[in-house]
């Protein structure tokens, strides 16, 4: 009798968004004790009846919101009000009204997401980023792209994959980043040195790949991306599926996979033999969220096999001169998907774990990640001895452990991040010697704070200290060498952002950066095949230091917005490969010899972007980027600095009609100038002439079965222009790719909608 009275409690509650205080329609309210859930109505209200007296734990989950749980005691006579936090952007965490995305506040950054990113899907990371002003790609033929930011690449550019520094074999110019761009729903490029937060060596800039935050709302959501490329008859398929558990509030998992396969690329006149690729990647993620804390685990694998254009693998200098002097490669072929020697096989694995705890306006994060990278390079000639297996001539295996912890905090007008990062690396090689085995330990401690002086002005200051040890092992004249080096330096950064007027915002940053020499710069010794050069490391190299200054003026007039970004770097001890004499005499002839050396160098450049809505339907955009780099020690220009690029685009947006939503057509023209400031006699071939490429795209969303599919059709190099790019190493041997017609389809499968 008493029992039945006790179990007649009613509960009425309202769920509101913290940000707007608007009611939440369709939020899931789960009562742990009775293992039942209800959904809120359009007023955000929910009801339970027949609840017994006592303690209950309620969990609230909503699409695009952070998980929320609350404890209450029945009987409870008034309405229960539960507020939940909606994420403003993917990947950002809102803490009591202010957002944290662990990115510097004063910086020049550009983001690719949603439609913009969907239109670039299916290409490699380096290729997708080329549309951003100030970003270009150092290319090795049609399949290998390394991002170049403000004229810098390789170990001077950092890639953050899901919050973890990508640790692959980034020292080689023909080594593309080992990441699947489909993992990310948002790709951000932060231009300029970002030493404090991401590591002192991020001198040129940082590429952030961020997956969409896992959604703990009940149910299943999926997305399929398909792409077809006419030029190399490539196909790409990627799928992502995520699920929020109904009976375990706060738990969500995601599965993602990508397959890419392509054959030989065609220039306007001939096929490039052996330029096919095949790639298979997957990732798993799980997140568990509570009110104050949460944990995440993420595992991904990247596996690729890339053919290297047969005409580019050079036995010696005579071969290189032969290749340069012939207008067309001696090796041509028809179309084929087969990948033969020379080729690369690259595997990359990342396993990341994260735990965070929020307390008031502060959040503590602890992360551990393990990365394993295996790189195999096959020469065009397999071993003469038939008893030796058909194996790679070069193999590197790099294992990296990364432990980091940081505290995001807000005290009055001051907010910032303080953290510590530890990296342990070990590398081994098999086959021909190029870089040594090594063990390395690095620790970095940093703090960066932003002070809001007024509603118009913000100040940012950061300080970091790094310490790194490198123990290498290699043979010299059959004697094992094991040199040990240590590197350390402080890094500082200062920034100011000021709203000059309603229309103008000016940011000025001044900072230092330092980069310990990489092992290849210290100890490499051997013939670099594609480059037909004998490269010798310099074990006495010191750390590279730079001072950098940048100005960014963002402007927003009525229908017109954009920015002007100007930057300069002043390097002492800039590390680069300098020609050395005499040439190295080998059994394959004499090779020009290059030794790593340090000089004083200066980089300077600017990027300009402008978007103007000419009418309601017509948008014009223009982007210019220019960079120069000078060696002050030898009074000469530095090699491989991007030529000036000017992109112009016009986009027409049609009216949506029925199931056809936001259809558009766009026309883009890219002009790349001849590179004039190049070192004298430092290159085998003079820089190629200027070129002009035309691209047309049409696209639309189509509503099919309540899902908004995005379909685009793109024609790249529409005029089938013959051209060679200064930053493409294949410019010595062959033209760049000809016309390419691309069809892309993005199909969301949202089973959460009701």
């Amino acid at each position: 009798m008493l029992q039945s009275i006790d179990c007649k409690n009613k509960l009425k509650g309202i769920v509101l968004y913290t940000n707007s205080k608007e009611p939440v329609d369709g939020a899931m309210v789960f009562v742990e004790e009775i293992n039942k859930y209800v959904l809120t109505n359009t007023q955000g209200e929910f009801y339970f009846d027949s609840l017994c007296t006592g303690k209950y734990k309620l969990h609230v989950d909503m699409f695009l919101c952070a998980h929320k749980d609350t404890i209450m005691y029945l009987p409870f006579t008034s309405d229960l009000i539960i507020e939940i936090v909606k994420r403003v952007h993917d990947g950002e965490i809102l803490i009591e009204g202010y957002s944290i995305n662990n990115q510097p506040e004063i910086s020049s950054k550009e983001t690719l997401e949603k439609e913009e990113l969907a239109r670039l899907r299916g290409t490699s990371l380096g290729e997708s980023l080329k549309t951003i002003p100030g970003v270009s790609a150092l290319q090795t033929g049609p399949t290998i792209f390394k991002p170049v930011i403000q004229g810098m690449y390789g170990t001077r550019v950092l890639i953050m994959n899901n919050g973890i520094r990508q640790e692959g074999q980034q020292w080689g110019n023909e080594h593309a980043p080992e990441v699947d761009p489909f993992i990310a729903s948002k790709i951000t490029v932060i231009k300029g040195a970002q030493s404090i937060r991401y590591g002192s060596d991020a001198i040129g800039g940082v590429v952030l790949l961020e997956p969409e935050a896992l959604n703990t709302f009940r149910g299943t959501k999926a997305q399929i991306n398909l792409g077809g490329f006419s030029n190399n008859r490539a196909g790409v398929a990627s799928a992502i599926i995520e699920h929020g558990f109904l009976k375990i509030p706060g738990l969500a998992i995601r599965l993602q996979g990508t397959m890419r396969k392509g054959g030989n690329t065609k220039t306007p006149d001939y096929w490039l033999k052996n330029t096919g690729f095949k790639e298979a990647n997957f990732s798993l993620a799980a997140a568990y969220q509570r009110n104050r804390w949460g944990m995440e685990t993420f595992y991904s694998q990247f596996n690729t096999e890339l053919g290297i254009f047969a005409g580019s693998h050079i036995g010696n200098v005579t071969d290189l001169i032969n290749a340069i002097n012939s207008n067309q490669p001696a090796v041509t072929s028809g179309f084929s998907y087969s990948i033969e020697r020379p080729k690369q096989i690259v595997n990359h694995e990342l396993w990341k774990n994260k735990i965070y705890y929020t307390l008031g306006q502060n959040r503590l994060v602890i992360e551990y990640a393990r990365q394993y990278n295996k790189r195999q390079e096959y020469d065009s000639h397999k071993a003469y001895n038939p008893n030796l297996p058909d194996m790679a001539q070069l193999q590197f295996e790099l294992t990296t452990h990364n432990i980091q912890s940081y505290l995001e905090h807000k005290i009055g007008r001051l907010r910032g991040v303080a953290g510590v990062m530890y990296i342990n690396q070990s590398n081994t090689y098999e086959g021909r010697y190029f870089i040594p085995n090594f063990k390395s330990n690095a620790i970095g401690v940093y703090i960066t704070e932003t002070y809001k002086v007024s509603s118009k002005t913000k100040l940012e200051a950061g300080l970091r200290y790094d310490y790194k040890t490198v123990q290498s092992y290699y043979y010299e004249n059959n004697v094992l060498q094991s040199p040990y080096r240590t590197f350390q330096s402080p890094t500082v950064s200062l920034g100011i952002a000021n709203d000059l007027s309603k229309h103008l915002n000016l940011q000025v940053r001044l900072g230092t950066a330092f980069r310990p020499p990489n092992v290849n710069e210290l100890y490499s010794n051997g013939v670099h095949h594609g480059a037909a050069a004998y490269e010798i490391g310099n074990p006495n190299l010191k750390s590279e230091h730079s001072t950098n200054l940048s100005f960014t003026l963002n402007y927003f007039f009525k229908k017109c917005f954009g920015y002007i970004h100007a930057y300069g770097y002043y390097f002492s001890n800039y590390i680069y490969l300098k020609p050395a004499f005499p040439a190295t005499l080998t059994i394959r002839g004499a090779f020009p010899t290059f030794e790593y050396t340090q000089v004083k160098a200066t980089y300077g450049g600017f990027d300009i972007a402008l978007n103007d809505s000419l009418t309601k339907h017509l948008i014009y955009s223009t982007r210019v980027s220019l960079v120069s780099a000078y060696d002050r020690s030898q009074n000469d220009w530095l090699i491989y600095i991007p030529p000036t690029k000017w992109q112009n685009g016009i986009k027409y947006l049609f009216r949506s009609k029925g199931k056809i939503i936001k259809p558009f057509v766009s026309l883009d023209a890219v002009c790349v100038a001849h590179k004039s400031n190049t070192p004298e006699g430092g290159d085998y071939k003079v820089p190629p002439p200027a070129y002009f490429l035309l691209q047309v795209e049409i696209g639309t969303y189509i509503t099919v079965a309540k899902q908004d599919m995005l379909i685009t059709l793109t024609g790249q190099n529409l005029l089938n222009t013959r051209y060679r790019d200064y930053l493409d190493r294949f410019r010595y041997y062959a033209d760049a790719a000809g016309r390419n017609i691309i069809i892309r389809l993005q199909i969301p499968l949202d089973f959460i909608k009701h």
Partner: protein
Amino acid sequence: MNNFKNSILKSAILAFIITALAACKKDGDNIANPVNPNETELVTTVKLIIAPTTNPSAVMNVSFRDMDGDGGNAPIIDTIRLAPNTEYFVNVLVLDETKNPVDTTSKEIETEKNAHQFFYSKIGTYNLTTTYLDFDDHNVPVGLNVKLNTTTGFTEKTNKLKVVLKHQPGLKPSTGSGDESLGETDLEVYFPILIQ
């Protein structure tokens, strides 16, 4: 109930972590003991075995030898010394002398003769003719065995004989006498030559 749910959750997370750990690939190599590069295949030596056709027992061995591979110590190169107005047989050996027993790579070149060819050329102005004596399956020269014919001698010490081995898989012509501009250079050595 709560315990049951927690245990499901815990086992799910545990299963995930175990899967991830088991899937992690490991580098089995010893960091402190790198592979000595000389243990893999290396071509150290190009040896010309030269004998006058009239006196096959008067053998001369002339070598280009780079025992430590690319870089390091400079190669040791012998001089070819020939008499005027004489015909010589030449047999080419390509060796890896770091192996015990010495690995004779030229045997494999012989096996892959349809994808390889040696080319001989004079650096400097002097009289010497080279004639191929061996041919592949398409009757295109290979050049492991050649004949050298000298006429007048000279006193300059700057003349050289250039010996090149090209690897031409799928590229080697199937008619004629070969094309040096094709393929990848496997060997390129220069021997100082004296005809006195």
